[in-house]
């Protein structure tokens, strides 16, 4: 009994640093945000308790739900591209030849650039008057007049932004997939080969099932990142045309800081966080199931 208590104390001591970290950097800010969401607070005036008014207003706020729907749409479009694209790149480069190592490095380099910087870079590349993209397409004769990439048509803008984000982050998934593929014991794949499995069969029947946990992990990270998309839309379209490319976080930002409605922004954030939490739990359940 005494030994059990001692081991519990030791276990708690091991756990304590992580627990403190979570309490200080996650639980406390979350509690603070929940408190803020119940107040009318502009930062420059004292907070005033308003109960659930901010939530009531959020549920009636058309623009918030337009932004939310757009965010879901963006997530639904970009996630398969990142996962399938990243996995295909990983399959191509998972073996350690020199060319494959160089390719991996080249694909991974944009990951280390900040998203804000890469968005600004792509904003200029897509510029109608000064951009390289239109110049190249015109010179190749693929278009007869410059394309208005950003802020005019929601679908074209979204496609341009997705292209820029895929360039920026696809290397992240690829590296994780490469790690997972390389961790598969070679005797398993060799056994499949000896049994006459084609490359496609080895990928779909052996490699993919054995790397499914990583696939789900990358999907989880990618979906959360996309649901929290901000920089690329803020810089490249500012929500235009007619707020059709405004994401949820962009709307939260506008309310919290430029509009100085911190309480309302916090309520919007809580709603968004609740949605992401539900999705994450669902995803983790899936991961556990695949593990079992």
């Amino acid at each position: 009994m005494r030994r059990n208590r001692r081991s519990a104390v030791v276990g708690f001591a091991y756990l304590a640093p992580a627990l403190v970290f979570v309490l200080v950097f996650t639980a406390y800010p979350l509690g603070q945000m929940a408190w803020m969401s119940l107040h009318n607070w502009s930062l420059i005036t004292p907070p005033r308790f308003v109960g659930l008014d901010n939530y009531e207003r959020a549920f009636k706020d058309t623009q918030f739900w337009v932004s939310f729907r757009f965010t879901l749409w963006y997530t639904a479009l970009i996630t398969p591209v990142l996962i399938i694209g990243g996995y295909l790149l990983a399959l191509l480069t998972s073996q350690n030849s020199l060319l494959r190592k160089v390719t991996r490095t080249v694909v991974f380099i944009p990951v280390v650039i900040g998203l804000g910087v890469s968005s600004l870079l792509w904003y200029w590349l897509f510029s109608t008057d000064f951009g390289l993209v239109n110049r190249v397409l015109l010179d190749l004769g693929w278009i007869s007049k410059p394309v208005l990439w950003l802020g005019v048509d929601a679908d074209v803008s979204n496609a341009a932004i997705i292209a820029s984000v895929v360039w920026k982050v696809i290397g992240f998934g690829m590296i994780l997939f490469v790690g997972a593929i390389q961790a598969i014991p070679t005797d398993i794949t060799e056994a499949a080969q000896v049994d006459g499995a084609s490359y496609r069969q080895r990928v779909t029947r052996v490699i993919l099932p054995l790397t499914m946990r990583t696939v789900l992990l990358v999907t989880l990270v990618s979906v959360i990142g996309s649901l929290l998309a901000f920089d690329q839309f803020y810089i490249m379209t500012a929500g235009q045309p007619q707020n059709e490319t405004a994401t949820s976080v962009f709307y939260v930002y506008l309310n919290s800081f430029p509009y100085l409605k911190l309480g309302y922004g916090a309520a919007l954030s809580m709603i968004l966080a609740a949605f992401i939490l539900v999705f994450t739990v669902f995803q983790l359940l899936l991961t556990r199931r695949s593990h079992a």
Partner: protein
Amino acid sequence: MRTRPRWPALAATAALMLAAAACSQEEAPPTAGEGPAATTTCASKGDLTMWERSGGNKQMVDMLVEAWNTKNPDCKIKLTYIPHTEMVGKIAQGIASGEVPDLMGMDLIYAPQFEKAQQLVDLTDRLKDWSELKTASKGHMTVATYQNRLFGVPLYADVSALFYNKDLFSRAGLDPTKPPTSLGELRSYADKISALGGDIKGYYLPGNCAGCNIFTVGPLMWASGAKIEAAGPGDEPLVGDGVKQVLQFTRDMVKSGNVHAGDRTENGETFHLQFGSGKVGMMGTGNFNITLAREQNPTMKFGIALLPGMAPNSSASFIGGDLVVVPKGSKRVNDAVNVMKFLLSDEVQVEVYAKALNLTTRSDMVDNKYFKAEPLVQDVAKALTVGRTPYTLTFFEQINSPQGPWLKLLQRAYYSEDNLDTVIADGKKEMKAIAAQS
């Protein structure tokens, strides 16, 4: 009667005074009191901290700070630039956490919000007798004042005006000495310039930039007798025939091909580069574009006129720029006031602002040797006399926001077939709803 020597008491008093002098570098919290008489030099030693937004007139602010630092080597201004879009939030956070600079430059349009929230030091009693304020930019002074109390002075001024390309005027058979004086003339001149063909267009409309539009299209409405923003709860926005007339004018300009298709994507990032490209006949822009256009296109000849309205010879301008204010919690109010005195002094107005061909912030300083040698600056300075600055507590939400009703209204007018009365009615409704929350 002989008394005991008082040397110990005097020494103690002197020591206390010295200590007090040393402590005075960190002044007591600001009050609305008069304070010592302002000078153009520092009252104490040690760096002054100042914040300024990065998207403003950086070149001008750097020169002003350098001029102050040269004159006050023991009391230099330590300037920090905050990204333009972060400024309001950053100031608000600084005030909330008590981490504020000694003084700061503030986009003048946001000042009323902070004045109402009592987050700026009331300087009325310190500044009320300054003769310089009688001629200080009216737009700046309007927004620096809340309920008859004064909270700041101009840091620099940006005014909008109509820039026109004289080379294209000549090529189109127009008289380059006669810019348009009404929107009707502007339209007919634009038609002739666009008819030159190629990549040349008569006019420029920034289709995706709320701020650029209030700066350049707003004055077209004001000059046509309209009012744009709702000042506060219950106030009616978008009033006057000029609103619809200008929206119709802009829609016609787009439809008739007088603007580049790419203008529609302009979110402000490349706005300052458009006139200097030499492909635009006329464009509403700011005084900052004089130097930029020259650097970009040294051989291009251009002129500057006032932004016109519907009626001949009507005109208006947007007076923008920054104020210098003192945030609540500043420990160096006296020195911040001295910086203000310095900025408004004759010497700085002429030898710093005018010499660098920037607008002076006092109208009585416009008549100086540097402007006389530079007719374009003289032309743009005329905008100060017809300019105005909107006054509302919700400027960002109503006007400047990329998701706000102002940009939505303009985009529907420029690029859709929606009935303009409906467009205006929708804009009114949204602006009133926002103002009602102020």
